[in-house]
């Protein structure tokens, strides 16, 4: 019914009200399917309800080509993956292929920043689910995010390159922070086995990524790859995992000031401050009284926000001065 209403309206005037009805119809379909599954006690052994839902979403998007429909459909795919992992403890490859081939197709043909961002976020979330659902070693994430990064590097258009790289760097930075915690933990370290298959694949991809950068004459961006190093494999990995975060942020700061690029300075500042905070949590959590910990942590957070704000203002001023 909602579909029909939306379609009638769409034919009269293709506006947001028409699309909203279509979105409502789309959501009602999925909700109806889940409700039927509950009422009739249907045993769901893999993610088929979400696969159907996502395929219908792609079809609806193909008909109306509206951003809202794309966003809702890609959200359904991603949430379906998470839900399937929590209920069935399994990873749905079909949903990942739907993302790569189905949504990827539209991301490629309908150049749009929003689509590229949503696509890369969904990619990151799905592969995170893969690592947890298949109980893979966490360092496989490095490889998966490197794939996203290299994909962004290979394509020349900014509309794909920027979102892919930003999301993959953000994801790998968070993995880097996570890694500083688990490498410190002997309980996890015992669980950590090093797989040669990973090293081989990683080596090939990493080499290719460096080659692309050098051929493209963007060698200063090589610093991004410091985050994609498999720290877990080398000695003193705990210390190294922290040092890597600092190298990344400091070099970006340095490059940013040298090239007078406000964007790079921002990357450097934020990552530097977050790194400082990571170190603070690491060293102070055990050593300090908890009330003192939160007091100093609060002051630190205040200082960090103050510095970021100050930074932002100088950048804005500078940009105004340039104009």
């Amino acid at each position, binding site marked *: 019914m909602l*579909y*029909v209403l939306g*379609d009638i309206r769409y034919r009269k005037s293709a506006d947001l009200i028409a699309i909203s009805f279509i979105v409502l119809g789309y959501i009602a*379909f999925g909700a*109806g*399917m889940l409700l*039927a*599954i509950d*009422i*009739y*006690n*249907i*045993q769901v*052994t893999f993610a088929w309800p979400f696969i*159907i839902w996502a395929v*219908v979403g792609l*079809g*609806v998007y*193909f*008909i109306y080509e509206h951003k809202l429909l794309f966003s809702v459909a890609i959200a359904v795919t991603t949430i379906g993956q998470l839900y399937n992992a929590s209920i*069935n*403890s*399994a990873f749905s490859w079909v949903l990942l292929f739907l993302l790569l081939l189905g949504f990827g197709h539209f991301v490629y043909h309908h150049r749009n920043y929003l689509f590229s961002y949503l696509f890369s976020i969904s990619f990151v979330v799905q592969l995170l689910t893969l690592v947890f659902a298949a*109980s893979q070693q966490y360092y496989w994430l490095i490889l998966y995010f490197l794939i996203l990064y290299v994909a962004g590097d290979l394509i020349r258009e900014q509309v794909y390159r920027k979102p892919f790289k930003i999301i993959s760097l953000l994801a790998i930075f968070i993995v880097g922070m996570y890694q500083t915690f688990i490498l410190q933990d002997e309980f996890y370290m015992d669980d950590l086995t090093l797989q040669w298959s990973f090293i081989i694949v990683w080596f090939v991809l990493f080499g290719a990524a460096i080659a692309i950068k050098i051929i493209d004459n963007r060698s200063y961006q090589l610093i991004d790859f410091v985050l994609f190093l498999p720290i877990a494999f080398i000695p003193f990995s705990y210390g190294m995992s922290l040092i890597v975060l600092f190298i990344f942020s400091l070099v970006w700061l340095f490059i940013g000031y040298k090239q007078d690029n406000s964007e790079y300075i921002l990357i450097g500042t934020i990552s530097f401050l977050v790194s400082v905070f990571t170190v603070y949590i690491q060293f102070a959590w055990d050593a300090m009284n908890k009330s003192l910990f939160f007091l100093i942590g609060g002051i630190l957070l205040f200082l960090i926000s103050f510095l970021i704000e100050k930074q932002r203002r100088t950048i804005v001023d500078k940009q105004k001065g340039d104009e």
Partner: protein
Amino acid sequence: MKRFLFYLLLLLQIAILFLLGVQYYFIDDYGRTVQLLSKHEEMTDTYGSYNQHMTYIDYEINFIAEDAWEIAEEVDYNTKIYVLLESDSDGVFHIAKANDQKIDAEQDQVVLQGRYQYYNDMQKEYHVTYGIESFHPDFDFNSSVRDQSIITIQLAPWGQKKVTDIEN
């Protein structure tokens, strides 16, 4: 073209919703009848309001003894488990063996697909669920009786299970 696709997609969605409902009633006609025992007395319980009541049953086949368990390694929570059931002279099915690989069923045997939950150290039992433990019953039964009951379920060829009767 897109006009046509719109109607196709609309029909497809209606068909899917329709199928989900219809298959429930087809289970009765095409399903295979299997009788199971509930675990103990006082295990059959109903909860929820009168209008949308749910029934919860602990089956005998939820608990798999160690000697029927044919998996050597430790299994993760939610792993798929194939449980082979064999009928006794009364036509009630009991556990023959459980494996994480597919098992072929013979004449008076049936294979159920369950999910591993946990291992009970005290009872030396593995707990496996089949997705039919809690459901909305669409038949009348005496829920006040607390004796061990015989539960009739239907197994559809397309993998769905449905509880059709509870006898005390």
